[in-house]
């Protein structure tokens, strides 16, 4: 088991490495939008790229050697600097070298100029983690309970109501829901903050600040869990071993709690872990609309501002969380169902 876990963690890192490598290479291969003019910020940016080893810099036109220049900056005394792209794989090696040897993920180009990309991410990560953590805490039990209730009341009015509500609400995007909730609960009723309270706000305000984003983020998950649990439980409830358990004298409650639920949880629990990464990605728009200074909003900003160093670190965080969730999910099978022995010799 230990070896298996280590192997899975190792594989997760390999996968993460491949994903990041592909991200870097593909982003660098994007068609180049040639900037023009002598904007000092532009010149500073290209000088920084030169210092990082991502571009060549010459004081004369070298188009015949390096292809069309990326940027030409007017410099003093009538001379210009010409910047050319270093081959992508060479840039990639330098990028890796900076990370492995110096843990230097680069610095922000425009979001927070000059500040290390990893520092920017780390400052914002706690906000996203908090939102997602509470969302999971809220959505998992509620979704499972609703699913169980619907399964136990299968083909009754309760089941139909729950299923219909699930179908309707799973179709409502979170950004529609949050706009609606802000309007009603913040502006109309004044019960909740209309945007994420600042760090300096009192605890009560901060707690209230979780309600709208957590609820909006959980809404889809609750519906998803509910549907999933209902389907799994309905299948288990109709299985023969459960009938056998009842014939052996177990009450319906005992049969469900001891056998049905436990078996239904085998596919459900790993799915919960996998949901975490889904929540993180789902939070990008929501963080923007509710003014949450998390990594989701940062991800969108990084794309808009072409702040690629931030984008790469953000991607690394998403990948790492997603892959570790996958590892935990696989490991969870073994704990939930002792029959599953991962990595065991045949």
């Amino acid at each position, binding site marked *: 088991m230990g070896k298996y876990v280590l192997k899975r963690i190792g594989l997760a890192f390999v996968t993460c490495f491949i994903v990041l490598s592909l991200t870097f290479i593909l982003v660098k291969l994007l068609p180049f939008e040639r900037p023009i003019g002598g904007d000092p910020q532009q010149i500073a940016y290209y000088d920084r790229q030169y210092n990082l080893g991502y571009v060549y810099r010459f*004081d004369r036109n070298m188009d015949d050697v390096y292809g069309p220049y990326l940027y030409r900056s007017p410099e003093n005394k009538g001379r210009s600097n010409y910047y050319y792209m270093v081959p992508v794989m060479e840039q990639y090696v330098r990028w890796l070298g900076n990370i492995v040897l110096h843990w230097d993920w680069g610095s922000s180009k425009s979001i*927070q100029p000059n500040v290390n990309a990893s520092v920017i991410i780390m400052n914002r990560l706690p906000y996203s983690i908090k939102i997602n953590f509470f969302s999971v805490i809220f959505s998992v039990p509620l979704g499972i309970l609703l699913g169980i209730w619907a399964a136990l009341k299968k083909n009754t009015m309760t089941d139909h109501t729950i299923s219909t509500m699930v179908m309707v609400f799973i179709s409502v995007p979170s950004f529609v829901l949050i706009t609606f909730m802000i309007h009603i609960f913040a502006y109309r009723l004044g019960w909740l903050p209309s945007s994420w309270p600042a760090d*300096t*706000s009192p605890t009560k305000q901060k707690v209230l600040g979780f309600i709208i984003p957590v609820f909006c983020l959980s809404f889809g998950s609750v519906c998803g869990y509910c549907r999933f649990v209902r389907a799994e439980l309905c299948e288990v409830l109709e299985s023969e071993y459960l009938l056998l358990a009842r014939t052996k004298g177990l009450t319906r409650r005992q049969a469900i709690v001891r056998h049905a639920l436990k078996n239904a949880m085998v596919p459900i629990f790993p799915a919960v872990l996998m949901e975490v990464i889904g929540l993180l990605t789902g939070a990008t728009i929501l963080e*923007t609309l509710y003014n949450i*200074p998390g990594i989701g909003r940062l991800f969108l900003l990084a794309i808009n501002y072409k702040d690629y160093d931030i984008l790469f670190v953000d991607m690394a965080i998403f990948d790492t969380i997603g892959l570790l969730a996958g590892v935990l999910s696989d490991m969870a099978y073994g704990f939930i169902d002792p029959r599953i022995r991962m990595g065991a010799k045949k």
Partner: protein
Amino acid sequence: MKKTSKLLAILLVVAMVFSACGPQPAETTPAPTQPATQAPETKAPETTPAATQPDTTQPPATEPQPVETTAPAPEIPWDGAYMDKDDFQAYITHDLNLMVESIEDQLDDAAYTAVKAAEKAGEEAIAAGNTVAEVKSAYADAVAAVINAVPAADGLFSYKKESNAERTNILGILERFAIATGITGVSLFENGGYVMYNPRITLGTENYIVGYGFGLLAEGSITADLAFETNPDWARYYHTYEVSDPKTLLYHDDQGSQVGDLFTYMGASFYTNFMNETKDGYDWVPELAKEKPVAVNDEDGDGMATTWKFEVRTGDDGLKYTTGSQIESRAAFNDRPVALEDYETIFKLLLTASNKLYRGSELAAMKSGAIAGTKEYYAASENGFNADAWANVGIKTFVEDGKNYFQVTFAQEQTQFYCMYYIASSLYMPIPQEFIDLVGKNAEGKPMLFSFNSDATETPVDNSLILGPYYVSRYDADQQIIYTKNPNYVFADTKYAIEGLHVKIYTAAASDTNAGFNEFLAEHFDSAGIPQEHLNEYRNDPRTRSTTGTSNFKLNANACDQETWEYLFGVDGVVAQNAVEDYWDLKPAMGNHHFVQGVSYSIDRLTFASARGSIPSVDYLASNYMSDPENGLSYSVTEAHKNAVAQLLDDTDGYGYSLELARDYFRLALTELEAEGKYQPGTKENPTKIEIEFAWMYPTHEENYHNEIKNFIETAFNDDSVCGGVYQLECVFWVGNEWSDVYYNKMMVGQFDFGFGSITGNSLDPIGFVSVLSSDQDISGSFTLNWGVDTNSTDVYPIVYDGMKWSFDALYNAVNGTAIASKGQNKAAVSFVYHEMEKQEDGSYVGSFDVEVALPDLTELTIDDIACCDYERYYNGDKQYEETYLGDFEGAIEVTEVEKGIYKVTFTVPAELAAAYVDGNGTSAEPEGYTGFDLYYSYTLDGAENNGLYYSVNDYFVVE
């Protein structure tokens, strides 16, 4: 004009017959099949022979050259495709009359007579024209004749000391030229409008003061807590928001307005403005200064001087710094007394080029209000502070009779008021060198003052040291910025009663125009502009106040022809350089002034601006630009402005909108463009598409602005009455990644058709601000947004002042300082031609400069020295570069006067120096012999000294 359509149809049928029988142009495109009633059935012949072009090389003459009317031409059918002959001639004659009207009140009797004669002859020639080309040719000849009838300004001129009223007249003349030639673009609206304030705010005044505002912070107060605010310390802070995190508060390195606005809260300056006692204007008050400036060298007693001094506050007067930092090393600067040398330190920080501060480069490149020696010092400080060069900068501090003085020397004479004005910026708030050193520099070599450090452990709170009314006490990235009242502020006891500011970073408002307003209605913010959809509901709300604007937003136009564009923006463009594959696809329609006029007339500004809570305007300058800044007289209410702008307003709704005129001007433009062969008509089913790109700042502008503007223009142009549908105009939306892309990647580099934007300048110096209309980048400071006209030409459109004709650039320089005019055009006092070096047998190199003085009788020229630069080392070596002064070598510089005012400067680079420079003093791996020369010179023009100037060239040593 529509009544002539039947006649037009008959003429067209005749024209078809003629065109079918007559000679065909060399390259023909089959005429599209059109219904008989469609106007553009006949393709206009491409007849613009050189002989019909205006002769721009004619020598100036005081007598008008009669326009040749010759014998009556044989009956030729009118070839105008979309406008009948009478209408076309009427519009062209109107252009001519408008032009003459714009200059006639500045002419003396002789010139007036000559101009009127030229006008009359022009009218007759236009009326006699039988084709579009003939009419246009007659117009061009008439323009040339009118221009030639006016004597040109020649010599040295200055109108800087004229009265405000006279300078306003000159501004009106410049504005009228700018409008007539289209370099003002198409104005849309002034950014004033409606703002709502929370009732807990008491404003300094209920009536908006142009150029000052409501006095919210300085004179206002807050009378109740904000219920929403949970921090009791901030309950009486003014709550506002920004749509994005500014990332830094270092105004000294910012190009936009956001950081500048946020810096203003904590900035202090030599002079500031406070509301006057009657609350209808404002006064200039010394803030860091203790008195108004005193002239040092007002020798002629006219109140103008280049050098001014004034006593400043220091620690001796109790002036102390404040920081909100809790870090021990930073907090140690709290309550530190201000030292006199700190006033100089901030200028050194800004102007030292190695600090790479944007506002420093801007200060060094200033035209109006330039401080002496700053340009030269900036050029000489690439490697850090240069004490020798600093000695020539017009900034000094000294103690005299126990008093602390700051002295500033401007490049040109200034009045006391403009001395205050140019020096009154919070950018110049003093700072101790020790604090700059403590904060340090980032990887780019820029100071981290007012910014985050690289690991964000120090925020702008820690890196700020201020003297203004508020200090930044919290900076939570992406959340909020808190300012708290500074107890050390000079006027802390009498002004700025509001305890602080809470600036929320509210990103939701960037994509949702209602978000900020909703927060205001929920009483989370203290003020907000009213979004378009809520205007009717809240326009008359008691919380609403109306404001005038600070800037006029407009569609700036690229009206260049190919040759002009390549000169300005081509591979070796003088303004910006574009690779051949990036050349802009110029639209011929944009180069037609009548087309751009049509666009202007087609926009219903009143509807457009009113729906957005802005002020409709055709003006180039916003209402806050002052004709008489000391008395608060807005330029927009002067007769000079009204006369200038009349050409845009006549026969319109009062805001430059007339659908009928728009369609007429589009007809006029298409008629001309087709006659010139620039467009070929399509068919109604398959029209020729004219795509014009409109570049905007934000994606939201598509819905907020573009769609309606597009609708206005396309509705006017694509109407069947214009060209029968054989052309279709399509207005295409463009937006960049950042708001500033429309400036830096579009308008300032020639990559656009129309670009939305505005440049805001010194509102108290409109006549200096119009520099941005010049095509000369030395004058405009690289802020030109409209292109197509050479503003140093006198041939395009006449500018007449004081009985003489001028180019825009020449008159601009004359009214802002001194102009050397030659044939009406602006000319440099000293001009240079470089002749490349040649290697001599002994290994030395000999090169030369031809130097010409524009006004030899008034100029004394001195060649000071020639610096030989080791660029090989700089570019291919270790990035260091040295200069060697050839004057240090005996006989290396020889100056001979070839004839009066023309000199030959021959220089010799000694063999040993050349040998050392060839390989960059041993640092260059593959030497290419780069070098360059700075010819240092000074001159006295009519008694005014100009020292420390230089002219730079590049050259090569031979690499063997």
